[in-house]
């Protein structure tokens, strides 16, 4: 019985830790203010669109910024305007989301960086 419970707990921990491998906080301190609950993807024609979503857990209206680094199938960076910081604001105790689209048909991998 214990083995099952431990296995389930391990799986839940792994799922919890591995749900958003493509989103990273630059300063870990902001993780107490906002959460990233996930990143969903879809195709717009041949381009990949990504929407990052989460929640402002703090009791304040806050402004953050994000940048997205896109890479091709070989791991080389695909240069674009989206690699520059973009501001986004979140109302207190409210969900938020922002989306970005691949700058090129060659851009298949991405990493989103969030900072204050």
């Amino acid at each position, binding site marked *: 019985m214990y083995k099952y419970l431990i296995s389930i707990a391990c799986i839940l921990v792994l799922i919890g830790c591995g749900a958003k491998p493509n989103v990273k906080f630059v300063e870990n301190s902001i993780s107490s203010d906002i959460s990233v609950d996930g990143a969903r993807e879809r195709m*717009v*024609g*041949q*381009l990949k*669109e990504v929407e990052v979503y989460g929640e402002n857990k703090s009791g304040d209206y806050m402004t953050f910024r994000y940048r997205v680094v896109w890479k091709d199938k070989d791991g080389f960076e*695909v*240069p*674009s*305007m*989206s690699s*520059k*910081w*973009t501001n986004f604001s979140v109302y207190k105790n409210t969900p938020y989301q922002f*989306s*970005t*689209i*691949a*700058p*090129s*048909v*060659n851009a298949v991998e991405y990493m989103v960086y969030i900072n204050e």
Partner: protein
Amino acid sequence: MKTRTIAVSVLMTGLLITGCADKTERIDMNNDTAGQVMGLDYRDFDEAAGKSIQSLLKSGALNKPDNDRVVIAISTITNDTMQHIDTDQLIKKIRVDLLRSGRAVITTSIGSEGNVDAMNKQVREISGSEDYNQRTTAKKGQLISPEMSLSGKIIQRNVTMDDGKQQVEYYFQLTLTELKTGLAWWEDETVIGKRGSGKSVAW
């Protein structure tokens, strides 16, 4: 003796001025946290261009059934602000990212002033010239006609606040028109607002 005293004084003053002068610094274009200006600077053009290109790619207006590239001509981009702006500061960034996207290609054979390469015409004037290998010259019927046109306007609006402060609003408006039908398939507006001292001048 007097001449020497004057020379030493001039030298000392020069050294003092040089020593006190502010050092010139290079801007870190990737993380420029310096204060804002009431006019438009490169950060504003980056923001407007970045949002516009994202909006255009997300709209699907450039998606052709055969996944071929859309040929776009750059039409008139009007500067309706009080500042001397070369609208290429905005359009060039969009052109670069459009080309990189693999969804569009820009023609320089037709378009508004500044967006046409005169060499397209000149190279056709040498067709038939004995000086040139005729296999390498441009032939009639080789230019590709644009399918869409990108036009736009940058607008400035100044507002004086009740407390005497000045508010400046900049509107970056862009339209993508399908030339065969004249229908606007995509339109976008980015607004950037700034508020500062009433003594600030935004031109």
